[in-house]
């Protein structure tokens, strides 16, 4: 599996990682190595095998529609990098 710099840049953007050029080179090589290793999965016969996405066969786990107390917003807002009133503040979102 060959991984291009563009692939790494595309993935880094999806993951919102602002990588430096050096990091891109570095990860390009490492990602290639890891993917070459995991390629061995192609040998496994998965014909008619259902994917397993949970470790347990649990089903229908619900919560009753009964309110519980919310947090005191001050307990979390005090950690926020930027707030205004009780809002979290972020750089302007352009739509």
């Amino acid at each position, binding site marked *: 599996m060959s991984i291009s710099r563009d692939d790494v840049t595309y993935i880094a*953007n999806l993951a919102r990682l602002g990588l430096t050029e050096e990091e891109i080179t570095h990860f390009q090589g490492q990602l290639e190595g890891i993917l070459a290793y995991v390629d061995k999965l192609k040998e496994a016969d998965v014909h008619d095998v259902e994917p397993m996405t949970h470790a347990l066969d649990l089903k*229908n*786990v619900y*919560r009753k529609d009964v309110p519980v107390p919310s947090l005191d917003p001050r307990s979390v807002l005090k950690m926020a990098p930027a707030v205004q009133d*009780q809002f*979290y503040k972020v*750089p*302007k*979102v352009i739509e």
Partner: protein
Amino acid sequence: MRDDGLTRRTGRLANRLTGKPAKNCLYTHEVSDTKHAEMMNYEPVIGLEVHVQLKTATKAFCGCANIFGSRENTHVCPVCLGLPGSLPVLNETALKSAVKVALALGCDVKHFTKFDRKNYYYPDLPKNFQISQYDMPFSENGKMDIRAQDGVKRIRVKRVHLEEDAGKLIHPESGTESLVDYNRAGTPLLEIVSEPDLHTPEEAYVYLTDLKLILQYLDVSDCDMEKGSLRCDANISLRPAGTSGLGVKAELKNMNSFRAVRQALEYEIKRQAAVLEEGGSVVQETRLWNEKKQLTLPMRSKEEAHDYRYFPEPDLPPFVISAEEIDTIKKELPEMPAQRRRRFMEAFGLCEKDASTVVASKSFADFFEACLELYGQPKKIVHWLIGPVSFQMNTRGQDMAELRLTPAALTELIDLVETGKISQLAGKDVLQEMLESGKSAGKIVVEENLAQVSDAGALLAVIQEVLAANKKSVDDYKAGKENALMFLVGQVMRLSRGKANPKTARELLVEKLRSL
């Protein structure tokens, strides 16, 4: 793909009509003179994506209250803020409400369903993924029969799935920052996706109206577009009339009312037609409806390729909905608007127009049925509801609940009119007084002395007075002029301040005149 020859042909046609060279630019209203040609050449293909907040007591995956209008960031907890370590647990009622909607829309409710994570970064999304449903929505393949202009049309519902709502972003006009409120984050949200079976903005409007009515009948959502509990995005493309392919579509967002959806679609049809007419091609993009300017504009932010990296939500085991559960929910479903309309027509002899009017508001129809329990004359009740009661609602700008009228109070009033205790005319005034003072009709009639006078003794005095004061009319009547009698009845009504029973007054007058 569009047939090139056809595009060129319609393009030339447009050039001939507008006398302008083809250009690929933002549509402006200049080309409205081509409207007729556009409408003949293109068929709009419209699909709607409706998001509806479910009005459960708590959010979809945590126990925070699901309430609108509180101070920012007050209904939040580790789960809906997506704090490290928190885990979602599904609200049982949310899934049940969702199944209700799916069944009411004739969907197949799936035996097995699961949740997936939709991954994308946005500040209103606390975890930077949304718990949604991807390849196994809990329901698919529904349908809605809408009453379009040219008869009933079946619109297919592609899928209904359950997901969590995002928080709310506020963009102050001035400043370089946006503000985030997570009260809404985690509210259970249904996504109802139609197939592109709609072909006019009006059909889209009717679809939305009918869908909203169904949701209101199910009592699962407030369906208030202003509060955002119902939101609608539209996909629209044009294709040459008579063809079956699909053109390049634009996604329209930011419509804050059904009217706005209709307007945005109307605008977009003209815009896309103009682009095509002028030989250009429609760009696949998201456009925002600008209510002030009454036009759609491309989103300013550069849209990225959507790569949402869906995968099964590992924190939520899957759900199995048994046939028995589906049957139970089906049995609990209330009567839907279409059924109710039919029943009102068949059981109570209402005409389609009246039945539709009553059914178009659940509270109105419920009120109608409550009145029927007390008073067995459906047509009389409908007459009052569609007439004077609606008039009061409109002039007051109140809905049925805000009017604070009880079925008992209204039927008492109707009975007073129907048994001749008060006249029809007086009845309307009594209704107004009832709504203003909260007093009963009977009490108002007594207090205002509005009871209709049918008693011969009491009326005779008034009649004597009228006859004495209108010698000429008496003579005219005697000379065979029937019109004079009408005048004299009117005088009796006037003198009795509307309380005289006109029928009794007329009979007594004739009797008196004969004896003169």
